């Protein structure tokens, strides 16, 4: 336990009342005078070229107010996602839009438009595209790699023999596109007493945020007002402005509440810009309501993996070498990077003495991919856990012990560059989880229980880098004594927009009731804040709030010195007053100091501000200057090394050998995210992440028809998003709660590892229940378990993905 006033304490986030009384407004809940409704015509083919659009049938249709085609919006270079396209690369790719006075008319109009599309070859499984003579998902090629050195298309094909050998579990010999390594890999395997070598598959699946990405826009005095569903707030502006072709100060983003993002709404996406273009063309507000089906199409999905891994272990369980080859299914828009992140996660979580990563990002004509909660780290977490179990069994080690032996700690160096970590306490997380779960006792229980059920125990570890730096903090103390906390953090459901501002309240020692948070609209004078992704918000934004508050306190003390005489250092604050340390009668209230700041002007009132803050912050400071004492600063606090968000999980399942179904009997998740900032929020992330892990482990996957490229599961139930009945009604969580030295409050992030540890614990438990059999796949569905138990063939070829 710490002695903070606000950090580590629960509070009621102000927006929660709107969520429980129905008043919280999401993008689709807004209306504007004269608003019309847009509907999209989306591609019915997986890959093609639009050769003709005939809209004559709706030329005089009553209620139709306009048509927007790819010619009306900036063209986008393949493979990047376009607002509208004449070169559709997946079923559901938006081709044109119609606006009408109501949605039904717009839909009727779409049905009357004739669009001719010349079809092109398409691929739903990366291995089909990689096969010599196989289809390319894009006319420019079948591989697209992005790197600092340069990005571009490639055409890479493997021979039939190479594909077959890969399917058979042998080391891939075909060409790859990216590679990194460290240490002496050959020596690492030479030193190994045990070598494990296996192929694996993780199938992609849709984000399926509850709120479809509806957007509405209108123009006023040259500024575009966009009501969107955004994961981040300030971070969206540069991208949104770019999409709309305007300067950043000509866009206002209103995103008060966002119905989930999970990586799919980090930055501005094309559908959010469509109403802006349409509104400009029509001269009236336009709302584009996105349906659930369309959200499946354009709402993005997790990158799938088809890979091969080889691990070497010394007699004592230490990992001596790791070699991983990952074919990434990067969809049609080449959105990925998951493969290298997966390699990085192996490097960090298991610290092999030598390691190599090879990657091959292959394009497919499936739903566009995007970052999804622990992109790469969580796929590989699921694959690694049963392999660690296998190694433990072969080396006669306890499964907990082998993880502790290889656990990331303060001395671990990671990734290709062998960078340090800011701090890491995985061993402590594992032990805390083992104690809470009662691992030692549960291990003694028999595996066979009431036939046909068997028990399985699993341990999982999750990781994602969980911090960022260099963003701005902004606060204002008003002459009425109220503390205004400006948060450019998106409101995606983590409450970090609010919890991180408590860092400023902590520094100011003020009461929470005296604080007012400003967020949700970019015209509310918000600072440049971090993206709400990569589990960075807690680390990054407690730092920005800290530096802004420190700046404010410094100014308060200087003002007190001006008023009462003496030096700034002679004064201290107590939450309501700035007082002389030795002469308490020399005291001014925060309100009086704020009034004085207005009178003194300059840096005190925000009339002068630091040059190094972002333009977005500068504009906000200019707007609030002269209305109180302004604390504003860029986060330039020291930061060196990888900032790890870590989690460990323990799970017990009962698996029915007659149905292939399993029930989760107990689940314990332990967060290792430095100091706990918001206990309830952390608990929510750990438990929500566990549900995501349970979905990935056993339920969720893409299914595409290989003949036509049609997606077969576009709804919630077909995608199999976990329901109440798919997960236990009680899950247990706790935290290590040891401070990280590179955050003023010791905090790091957690959202993504919260899921990774869960999916890993489950794949570990399923393997344990089946006497160590490893499917090497996610999800492990009931039919797969049943086929294995009964000795039947699986319904898919080895390494087959996206179609079954």
């Amino acid at each position, binding site marked *: 336990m710490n002695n903070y006033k606000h950090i580590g304490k*629960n509070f*009621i986030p102000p*927006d*929660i*009342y*709107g*969520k*429980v*009384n*129905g*008043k919280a407004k*999401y993008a*689709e*809940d807004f*209306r504007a*005078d*004269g*608003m*019309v*409704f847009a509907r999209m015509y989306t591609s019915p083919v997986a890959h093609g070229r639009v050769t003709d659009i005939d809209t004559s049938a709706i030329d005089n249709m*009553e*209620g139709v107010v306009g048509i927007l085609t790819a010619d009306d919006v900036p063209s986008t270079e393949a493979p990047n996602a376009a607002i509208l396209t004449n070169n559709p690369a997946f079923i559901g790719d938006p081709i044109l839009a119609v606006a009408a*006075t*109501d*949605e*039904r008319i717009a839909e009727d109009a779409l049905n009357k438009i004739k669009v001719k599309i010349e079809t092109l070859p398409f691929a739903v499984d990366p291995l089909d595209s990689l096969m010599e003579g196989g289809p390319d998902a894009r006319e420019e090629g079948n591989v697209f790699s992005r790197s600092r050195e340069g990005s571009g298309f490639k055409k890479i094909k493997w021979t039939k023999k190479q594909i077959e050998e890969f399917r058979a579990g042998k080391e891939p010999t075909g060409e790859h596109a990216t590679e990194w390594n460290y240490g002496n890999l050959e020596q690492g395997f030479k030193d190994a007493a045990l070598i494990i070598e296996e192929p694996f598959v993780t199938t992609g699946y849709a984000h*399926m*945020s*509850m*709120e479809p990405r509806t957007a509405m826009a209108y123009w006023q005095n040259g500024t575009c007002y966009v009501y969107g569903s955004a994961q981040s707030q300030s971070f969206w502006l540069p991208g949104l402005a770019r999409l709309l072709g305007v300067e950043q100060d000509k866009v206002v983003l209103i995103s008060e*509440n*966002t*119905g*989930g993002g999970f990586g799919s709404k980090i930055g501005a996406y094309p559908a959010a810009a469509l109403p802006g273009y349409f509104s400009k063309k029509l001269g009236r507000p336009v*709302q584009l*309501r996105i*349906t*659930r089906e369309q959200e499946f199409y354009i709402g993005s999905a997790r990158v799938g993996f088809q890979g091969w891994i080889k691990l070497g272990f010394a007699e004592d369980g230490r990992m001596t070498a790791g070699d991983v080859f990952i074919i990434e299914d990067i969809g049609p828009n080449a959105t990925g990077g998951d493969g290298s992140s997966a390699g990085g996660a192996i490097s960090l979580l298991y610290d092999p003495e030598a390691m190599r990563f090879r990657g091959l990002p292959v394009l497919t004509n499936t739903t566009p991919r995007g970052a999804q909660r622990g992109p790469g780290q969580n796929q590989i977490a699921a694959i690694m856990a049963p392999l660690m179990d296998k190694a433990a069994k072969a080396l006669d080690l306890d499964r907990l012990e082998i993880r502790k032996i290889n656990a990331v700690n303060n001395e671990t160096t990671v990734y290709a560059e062998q960078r340090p970590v800011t701090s890491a306490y995985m061993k402590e997380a594992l032990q805390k989880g083992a104690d809470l779960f009662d691992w030692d006792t549960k291990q003694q229980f028999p595996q066979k229980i009431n036939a046909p059920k068997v028990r399985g125990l699993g341990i999982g570890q999750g990781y994602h880098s969980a911090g960022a730096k260099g963003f701005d903090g902004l606060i204002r103390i008003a002459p009425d004594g109220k503390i205004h906390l400006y948060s450019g953090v998106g409101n995606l*459901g*983590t409450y970090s927009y609010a919890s991180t501002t408590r860092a400023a309240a902590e520094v100011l020692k003020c009461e929470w009731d005296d604080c007012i948070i400003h967020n949700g609209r970019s015209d509310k004078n918000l600072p440049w804040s971090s993206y709400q992704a990569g589990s960075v918000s807690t680390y990054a934004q407690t730092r920005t709030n800290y530096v802004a508050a420190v700046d404010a306190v410094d100014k308060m003390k200087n003002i007190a010195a001006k008023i009462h005489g003496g030096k700034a250092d002679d004064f201290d604050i107590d939450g309501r007053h700035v007082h002389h340390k030795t002469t308490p009668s020399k005291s001014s209230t925060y309100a009086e100091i704020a009034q004085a700041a207005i009178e003194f002007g300059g840096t005190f009132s925000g009339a002068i501000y630091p040059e190094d803050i972002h333009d977005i912050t500068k504009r906000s400071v200019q707007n609030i200057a002269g209305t109180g004492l302004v604390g504003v600063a860029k986060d330039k606090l020291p930061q060196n090394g990888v900032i790890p968000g870590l989690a460990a999980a323990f799970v017990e399942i009962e698996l029915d050998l007659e149905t292939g179904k399993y029930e989760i009997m107990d689940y314990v998740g332990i967060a290792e995210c430095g100091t706990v900032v918001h206990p*309830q*929020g952390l*608990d*929510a992330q750990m*438990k*929500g992440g*566990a*549900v*995501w892990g349970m979905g990935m482990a056993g339920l969720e996957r893409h299914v595409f028809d290989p003949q036509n490229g049609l997606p077969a599961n576009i*709804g*919630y139930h077909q995608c199999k*998003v*976990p*329901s*109440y*009945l798919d*997960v236990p*009604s*009680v*899950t247990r969580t706790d935290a290590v709660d040891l401070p990280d030295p590179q955050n003023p409050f010791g905090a790091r992030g957690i959202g993504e590892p919260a899921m990774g540890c869960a999916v890993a614990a489950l794949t570990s438990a399923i393997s344990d229940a089946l006497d160590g059999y490893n499917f090497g796949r996610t999800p492990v569905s009931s039919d797969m378990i049943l086929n294995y138990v009964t000795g039947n063939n699986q319904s898919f070829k080895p390494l087959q993905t996206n179609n079954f």
Partner: protein
Amino acid sequence: MNVNLTRRRFIKAVIASSAVASQTGCQLGSKDLHAKGSVERLISLDINGKKRRVDVLPQETLASTLRYKLGLTGTKIGCNRGECGACTVLIDGIPNYACSTLSHSVRKRQVQSIEGVANKDGTLHPIQEAFVEELSPQCGFCTPGQIMSAVALLNENPKPSREEARQALSGNICRCGAYDHYLNGVMRASGQSNE
């Protein structure tokens, strides 16, 4: 002056003007109120204890009417195909998916939406209070639906077991995975410990 008559006149005037109509709803449809063989379109609905006169298309769902005609946007449309439960409302006290309920079918029924859950003085219903205390919502998009299912449960069964609550809310998907916290909220609202 007859207030209802005035409202009816007003609504008719709205329907006669597609430009104005477009500001109020996304599915207003044809101007013809008396097409041959069609059902009456100007109907009365009992929403949150108030009589609301509204122009409703024959194929219009209750979720559309609530959101786009009556401005009750607390009822969310997550899937519009009866899968997610974000649009759950109570019809005569029974939870129903408003996206899969025709507005015409509830003419003689009592409809309660999230806007009608809090007390008249604005104080929160015990479920709402408990959801705040337990930090049950994450993104909040499914929350109104979760609350409606929970309210219906507690009306019927004031002291449900956790398993009963789980079953009762199982028609409401939460992509954030806040199930545990929602169940904690239900147990707290029913005066039962979460320990």
